[in-house]
């Protein structure tokens, strides 16, 4: 069956849904069969606001390779930012 591999992160942020920015406080991260992206398994990042967890969801689905690349690039960006500050 689907993997049920799921993690949750507390976040402090905001996301754009249609034309509005909304506050986000949580992110579900799961590894499972892809819905749309053309690969067997994908990483899904599903940000939400716990006060309205269904309608607030902002979701992206990416390949595992994309996820690793993004993780690397976030680390690089954070390091550069720290270097500036």
């Amino acid at each position, binding site marked *: *069956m*689907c*993997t*049920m591999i*799921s993690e*949750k992160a507390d976040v402090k942020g905001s996301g754009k849904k249609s034309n509005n920015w909304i506050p986000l406080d949580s992110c*579900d991260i*799961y590894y*499972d*069969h*892809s*819905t*749309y*992206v*053309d*690969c*067997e398994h994908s990483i*899904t990042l*599903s940000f*939400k606001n716990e006060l309205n*967890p*269904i*309608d607030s*969801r902002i*979701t992206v689905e990416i390949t595992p390779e994309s996820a690793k690349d993004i993780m690397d690039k976030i680390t690089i960006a954070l390091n550069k930012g720290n270097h500036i500050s």
Partner: protein
Amino acid sequence: MNDYKTHDYEGLIAETVSMKSSNGDKINAYLAKPLTEGNYPIIVLIHHLPGWDELYKEFTRKFAHHGYIAICPDLYHREGNGSPDDVAAEVRSNGGVSDKQVIEDILGASEYAKHLSNSNGKVGLFGTCSGGRHGFLIGCSTDNFDAIVECWGGNVVMDDASITEKQPISPHSLTASLSAPLLGLFGNDDVSPTPDQVDEHENLLKENDKDYVFHRYDGAGHGFMYYQTPLYRQQQSLDAWEKVFEFFQDKLRS
């Protein structure tokens, strides 16, 4: 794949209905049934982890088109309303739904359909993914069903680390109690269940002298009948659908 000829009248109704779980909760279900008079067997569809989605509603209508009263309860009804994938994401975030509640909802759907005027009273279960697991579990936990189709039911064979409060028993440990004929459909490239887990599942069915048939497809993995995903495998899927309809024809109309 069905008995219709071009000169036959065809008609079915498909709609959302409100039904009672056997625990008394009111939930929604999608019901599809032929409009013509007759004594039709019932298929209760157990949807997969991605939710009460368009695919499962299409599957429900497909069974009605083939002369079954088909009902698919929304197992995630209590989690709230929204687009199916958003609701399913919330269910996943909360660790899934409990096996106990799923069994109660499926029993309620079966009772609802049995009370319709054109039912022959025989009931089959059809489920894929988590729904396949639930189908087997329900067949081992009740004696209310006449045939079960389990499609790639992962976590039928669970290790101790996978046991949770909501899924407290590995279904394969209940094999001796299986009360209905079983058709299992699996892809040999699947990783949940793996071919080794399907072997273990099958060995227990053999040891307990159960009425079962497994078909295991090369060149197919998980979800190979999901035509809207990259997992789809056309030839294997077409063959599997034929196996499903032959099985239900034999077990529910004879």
